[in-house]
C-alpha cells in the first residue's frame, strides 16, 4: 500500500498500525476510551478478540510474545489495575515478539470512576512508555513501540488519553501491511520461569535494559525539540503538546514522546537554553517530579491542575500560575437508562423493597440516579459482591438483610465469579442475594460481545458460557432466571423471600438490551461486520 492520507481517530490509527506490523493477535477487554482499537483492527482484517478481563488479556498477550509473535493488548486505565499482576513480572521475563500494552487514561472522567495517571505504572513496573499526541503519532508510535519491544525484548506501554483516542485528524498510513508470522518453540527457562533464582538476575537485566533504552537512538529520536523564544520553554507530552502549541506559539517546546524512562540529557540541554521552563502535563506532576528528582530545576504546575483535562485556556492559566476558579460549564442533560431498558424494572423493584444496593460498573450504574435511586455503592469491576458481603458483616441484622448485590453479565464474567466463590465459601449469617442483570452484552461501552454471549468480537458464533449453570455448579443455594419486566410480581416476591432467608441466592434478571436487539437485527439483515 502506498502512502495514503485518511481521517482517523487515535484508536483507529493504532489499529491500522497494528495491522501494518502484522500482529498475530489483538486482545483486551472493552473500556472507554480504548474499545475502538480492537473493533477497528477486526474490521480491517486483523485478528482481534475480547478476553474475560484485562489480566487474562495480558496473559494471552504474554504467550503470543513468548512464542515470538506480535500482540497489542488494550484496556482502559483502570483495566491496568486488573492486569497489574502479570505486567510487573512480564517486565522481568521480557519477551521475544513485541508486546504492546495500550492503556487509555481518562483525565476529566468522561466515563470512568477515577482519573488515575498510568504513567506511574511505567515507573513502578519499570517499562518503557510512549505517549502519542494525535492520531498520526498514535500510528507512528505503535510502530515504534513494536520496534523497541523487539529490540530490547521488553513489553512497551502505549499511553493514550480520551482526547487522543477519540479525536480525529489526518493520518498518513505510510507503512505497508506485513503478514503475521509463526515460530518454532524456543526453550528459555531462565528468562520465562520467575522463581527467585531466575528472577533475581532478571531484575538486574531489567534495570540494565531500561538504561540501554534511555541511551538508545530509538528513544532519543522521540524527544522532539522546537526552538522558539528563549524566554519561555515548555516541556510536555501527549495531548498537552497540542494545547501548548496553540496557547504559546512563540515558546520553545520539548515534547517527550517517550515519558519513561526519562531522557534527562535532552531535558537538561533544553532547560539550559531557556530563561524559564514550565512542565505542562495532565494528571499527576509526573514529569516535573522526575525531572526535579534528576536535579534539574523546572516549574511544576499548581495543584489546581491535578484535576480534569487540560485545554488551551487552562494551559494559559497553568503557565501564568493563575489558580483562580474556572467558570463551571453549564450542566448538560444527564445520561439515563434507555426507555425500554430491562434494568428499569429490576431497579424499580429494589427501590420499592427499600434494598441497600451494592452496585457495579456498567449502564446499570445509572440506577443510582432518580427516579431509581437504587444503587448505593460503586467501586470497581466485580466489587458489588465483596462489598455487599462486607456490609452484611458490619450492619445490624435488619439492615444486613436489605443488602443486595447487582452486577451485569459482562462484569460478572470479568470479575464476578470470584465474588460468588467468596459468597458461597464465607457465607454471612444472614445469607446474601446477588442479582445478575443479564442483558446479553457489554452495553455501556457500546455493545461488545463476551464469553457468555455466544458470539466472537467479529460476530461469528462462539462457545457460550451458561451463567446459570456456572452459579449452580459453584454451590449457590438458589438460582432463578427471571424476566423482571414481564414477571415483575414474581420478581418482587422472590427478592423478598430470598432476603428473609439465610441462604445465598442468585437471581438472573435476563432480558436482552434493546440496543443489542437492534444491533443483532441489523447484523442478521446485512451480515455486515
Amino acid at each position: 500500500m502506498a502512502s495514503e492520507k485518511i481521517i482517523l481517530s487515535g484508536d483507529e490509527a493504532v489499529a491500522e498500525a497494528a495491522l501494518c506490523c502484522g500482529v498475530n493477535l489483538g486482545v483486551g477487554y472493552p473500556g472507554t476510551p480504548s474499545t475502538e482499537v480492537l473493533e477497528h483492527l477486526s474490521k480491517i482484517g486483523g485478528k482481534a478478540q475480547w478476553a474475560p478481563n484485562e489480566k487474562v488479556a495480558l496473559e494471552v498477550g504474554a504467550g503470543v510474545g513468548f512464542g515470538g509473535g506480535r500482540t497489542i493488548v488494550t484496556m482502559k486505565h483502570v483495566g491496568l489495575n486488573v492486569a497489574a499482576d502479570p505486567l510487573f513480572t512480564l517486565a522481568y521475563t521480557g519477551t521475544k515478539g513485541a508486546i504492546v500494552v495500550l492503556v487509555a487514561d481518562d483525565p476529566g472522567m468522561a466515563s470512568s470512576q477515577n482519573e488515575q495517571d498510568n504513567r506511574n505504572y511505567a515507573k513502578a513496573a519499570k517499562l518503557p512508555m510512549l505517549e502519542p499526541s494525535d492520531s498520526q503519532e498514535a500510528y507512528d508510535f505503535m510502530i515504534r513501540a513494536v520496534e523497541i519491544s523487539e529490540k530490547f525484548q521488553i513489553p512497551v506501554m502505549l499511553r493514550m488519553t480520551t482526547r487522543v483516542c477519540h479525536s480525529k485528524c489526518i493520518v498518513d498510513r505510510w507503512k505497508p501491511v506485513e503478514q503475521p508470522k509463526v515460530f518454532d518453540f524456543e526453550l528459555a527457562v531462565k528468562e520465562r520461569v520467575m522463581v527467585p533464582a531466575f528472577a533475581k538476575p532478571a531484575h538486574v537485566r531489567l534495570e540494565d535494559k531500561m538504561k540501554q533504552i534511555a541511551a538508545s537512538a530509538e528513544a532519543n529520536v522521540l524527544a522532539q525539540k522546537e526552538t522558539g523564544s528563549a524566554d519561555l520553554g515548555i516541556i510536555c507530552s501527549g495531548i498537552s503538546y497540542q494545547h501548548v502549541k496553540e496557547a504559546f506559539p512563540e515558546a520553545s517546546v520539548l515534547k517527550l514522546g517517550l515519558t519513561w524512562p526519562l531522557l534527562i540529557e535532552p531535558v537538561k540541554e533544553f532547560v539550559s537554553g531557556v530563561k524559564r521552563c514550565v512542565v505542562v502535563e495532565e494528571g499527576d506532576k509526573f514529569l516535573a517530579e522526575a525531572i526535579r528528582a534528576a536535579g534539574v530545576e523546572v516549574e511544576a504546575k499548581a495543584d489546581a491542575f491535578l484535576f480534569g483535562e487540560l485545554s488551551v485556556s487552562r494551559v494559559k492559566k497553568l503557565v501564568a500560575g493563575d489558580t483562580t476558579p474556572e467558570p463551571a460549564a453549564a450542566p448538560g442533560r444527564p445520561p439515563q437508562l434507555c426507555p425500554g431498558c430491562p434494568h428499569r424494572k429490576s431497579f424499580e423493584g429494589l427501590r420499592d423493597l427499600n434494598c441497600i444496593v451494592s452496585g457495579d460498573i456498567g449502564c446499570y450504574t445509572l440506577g443510582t440516579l432518580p427516579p431509581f435511586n437504587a444503587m448505593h455503592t460503586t467501586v470497581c469491576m466485580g466489587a458489588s459482591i465483596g462489598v455487599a458481603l462486607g456490609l452484611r458483616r458490619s450492619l445490624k441484622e435488619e439492615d444486613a438483610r436489605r443488602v443486595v448485590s447487582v452486577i451485569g453479565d459482562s462484569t460478572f464474567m470479568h470479575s464476578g465469579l470470584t465474588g460468588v466463590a467468596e459468597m458461597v465459601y464465607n457465607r454471612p449469617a444472614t445469607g446474601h442475594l446477588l442479582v445478575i442483570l443479564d442483558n446479553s452484552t457489554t452495553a455501556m461501552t457500546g455493545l461488545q460481545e463476551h464469553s457468555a454471549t455466544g458470539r466472537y468480537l467479529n460476530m461469528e458464533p462462539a462457545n457460550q458460557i451458561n451463567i446459570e449453570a456456572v452459579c449452580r455448579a459453584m454451590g449457590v443455594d438458589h438460582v432463578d432466571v427471571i424476566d423482571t419486566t414481564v414477571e415483575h410480581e414474581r420478581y418482587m416476591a422472590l427478592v423478598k423471600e430470598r432476603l428473609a432467608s439465610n441462604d445465598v441466592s442468585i437471581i438472573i434478571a435476563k432480558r436482552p438490551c434493546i440496543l443489542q436487539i437492534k444491533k443483532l437485527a441489523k447484523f442478521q439483515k446485512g451480515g455486515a461486520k
Partner: protein
Amino acid sequence: MSKAVTNVLFAGIGGQGIILASDLLSEMAFRCGFDVKKSEIHGMSQRGGSVSGDVRFGEKVYSPMIPAGEADYLVVLSEDQVEVCKNMVNENTVILTPAVLGDFDPGKSLNVAMLGALNAGLKLDKEIWFGLLREHFKGELAEINIAAFERGEASVK
C-alpha cells in the same frame, strides 16, 4: 494564528446524529484541502445525555478542542443545548438551531439539514458535499439527505 482556524461546535442529545454530522464536516474539510481535527466525548453521553462534537479546520490545527468562547458556529439539534454551550460562544458566533429551518421538518435528516444551514456560512463546495453524502448514504437515502441539505442551506439565505 488561531483565527486562521474555523471552529464549528455541534451539540445535541445522544441519538440525534451529532457524531455523524461532525464526522461529515471533518471529511468535507479534509477533501477541501484543510488541516482538520475533530473531538468528541463518547461513553455515558450515549445514553440520552448531552453530546457535543468540535470540528476545527484551517491551514494548521493543533488542539482538537475548541477553546472556550471561540466557537465561530454553534449548531444545535436540540434547542436546550444552546444554554449548555453558552461558555463556548462569543458575540460574533453564528448560532444555528432547528428554528432556522422554519416549517421544514427534515425528520431523521435533521443533522444533514443543519449541515446545509451551516454551509450557507461556510460556503464549502457543494459538489464535494453531494459526493460525500452520496458515499455515505445509500440509494434513496442519498437523495433525501441531499434535498435536506439544500433546503437547510436555502433556509438561511
